[in-house]
């Protein structure tokens, strides 16, 4: 693998940047792998990377029906934070946060991780009680957090309407300074490049059409382009399409797939140097380095696989953003899109064994999978390598919906679910 550095950039500038190596190969799959990962998004590629790097399992294929990082990885609003209420999820997301903090160096690829801080606003007394409780829980778990009053918020975001006159006045916020944003495409590309350098085969434009299961044990997958490919273990990391893969394996999941949409504005001058989220009025906004406002909305209430969102949801979100930032009212929106998020009843992911032996699922991240990308990949890789779930993944078994040990992060996590 070609090492990226300032010197390398200079050297290649002498030849007009025409001699850069391809970032990853485009291989024809082998007949058999130790591990097959279905789904080449951020989580799948991170899993492949950590399998190779930390567990020495390099005979791995990632099978992706479209192109790498073309699903939800490229459709989210790039927010990274770890201020979750319950111990199980706080530990998992904080594990991811610690990996984020060294990720660009680790991958030798700039993922543009910017710890610009995340504000979760409170607009009611109950919001503020929840925020106090969550920040206290965070601090007990070693996660940074502060409760801010409207004056201190105004210092961080001077353009936001923190007056008492708005429809839903801002009463305070939780503030996680280590939170921020990362460039989502670069995360997928960085992990892909890293995995490829260890010899992982990234198979794009190839759809898994069925699973090969013998005596309750998975032994491989069927694909539309390369026929059957055998594997000792298979990990499914397909987000919104998890139910479709589970159906091939013959079981149901406690998931419903919903469209979640986001939109970006035309680029404007720097105006917002942090991330503002509001659960109550339901919108979140940050400004990318290019200058466009990145705005996220809620999910559509119905299930759908259409990768597009409904207009009432956009309208609702934009209302919330304009209420918070009256100065954005004349900013024009450039693009709008939707991704398919697989939501769990308790708003926590599933990282789990399944009723089929050697078949593992990483799914159910709902609206918040991007922030967990390195952490989820890391623990899922450990689970796939050993065949036993990583301790951080243990509580997120799909069987928690049988024994009742749910991790109820709904609303409690300061998220806009």
């Amino acid at each position: 693998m070609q090492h990226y550095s300032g010197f390398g950039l200079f050297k290649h500038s002498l030849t007009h940047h025409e001699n850069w190596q391809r970032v990853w190969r485009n291989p024809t799959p082998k007949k058999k792998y130790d591990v097959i990962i279905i789904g080449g998004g951020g989580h799948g590629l991170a899993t492949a990377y950590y399998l190779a790097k930390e567990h020495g399992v390099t005979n791995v294929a990632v099978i992706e029906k479209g192109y790498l990082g073309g699903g939800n990885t490229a459709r989210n609003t790039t927010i990274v934070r770890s201020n979750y209420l319950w111990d199980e999820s706080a530990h998992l997301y904080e594990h991811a946060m610690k990996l984020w903090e060294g990720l660009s160096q680790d991958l030798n690829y700039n993922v543009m991780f910017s710890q610009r801080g995340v504000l979760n606003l409170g607009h009611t007394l109950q919001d503020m009680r929840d925020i106090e409780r969550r920040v206290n829980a965070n601090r007990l778990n070693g996660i940074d957090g502060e409760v801010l009053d409207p004056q201190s918020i105004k210092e961080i975001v001077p353009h936001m309407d923190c007056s008492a006159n708005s429809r839903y006045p801002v009463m305070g916020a939780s503030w996680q300074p280590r939170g921020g944003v990362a460039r989502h495409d670069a995360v997928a590309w960085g992990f892909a490049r890293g995995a490829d350098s260890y010899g992982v085969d990234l198979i794009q434009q190839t759809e898994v059409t069925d699973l090969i299961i013998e005596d309750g044990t998975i032994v491989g997958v069927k694909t539309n382009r390369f026929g059957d490919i055998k594997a000792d273990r298979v990990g499914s990391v397909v987000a919104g399409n998890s139910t479709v893969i589970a159906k091939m394996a013959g079981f149901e999941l406690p998931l419903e797939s919903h469209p979640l949409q986001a939109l970006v504005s035309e680029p404007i001058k720097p105006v917002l140097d942090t991330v503002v989220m509001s659960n109550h009025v339901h919108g979140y906004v940050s400004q990318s380095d290019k200058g466009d406002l990145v705005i996220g909305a809620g999910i559509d209430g119905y299930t759908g696989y259409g990768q597009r969102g409904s207009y009432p949801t956009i309208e609702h979100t934009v209302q919330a953003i304009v209420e918070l930032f009256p100065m954005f009212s004349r900013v024009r929106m450039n693009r709008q899109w939707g991704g398919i998020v697989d939501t769990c009843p308790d708003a926590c992911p599933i990282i789990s064994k399944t009723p089929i032996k050697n078949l593992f699922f990483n799914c159910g991240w709902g609206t918040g999978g991007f922030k967990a990308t390195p952490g989820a990949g890391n623990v899922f890789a450990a689970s796939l390598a050993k065949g036993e779930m990583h301790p951080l993944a243990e509580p997120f078994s799909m069987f928690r919906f049988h024994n009742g040990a749910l991790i109820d992060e709904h609303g409690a996590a300061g998220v806009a679910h």
Partner: protein
Amino acid sequence: MFHIYCPHCAEYREEEEFHAAGQAHIPRPLDPDACSDKEWGEYMFFRKNPRGIHHELWVHAAGCRKFFNMTRDTQTYEIKEVYKIGEQPSVVAE
């Protein structure tokens, strides 16, 4: 934007008046105390979530406030039919 026909109001109304309430035709176990944890968990949480034809429960929340069923394609979003609670769908997945 969906344009939804409410079988109770017998009128087409806009999506915003309605609220999707999840999968339809989930019968509550007749004897919940006799359920195993697995059966009860599956009744509570496990859903079909198909990519394609899906039977859903909707409520005309800002209208007559009554529930009804809808058969909808979750890929194309085409509404195949609406029918009242207690009726069976005429359009089903193969």
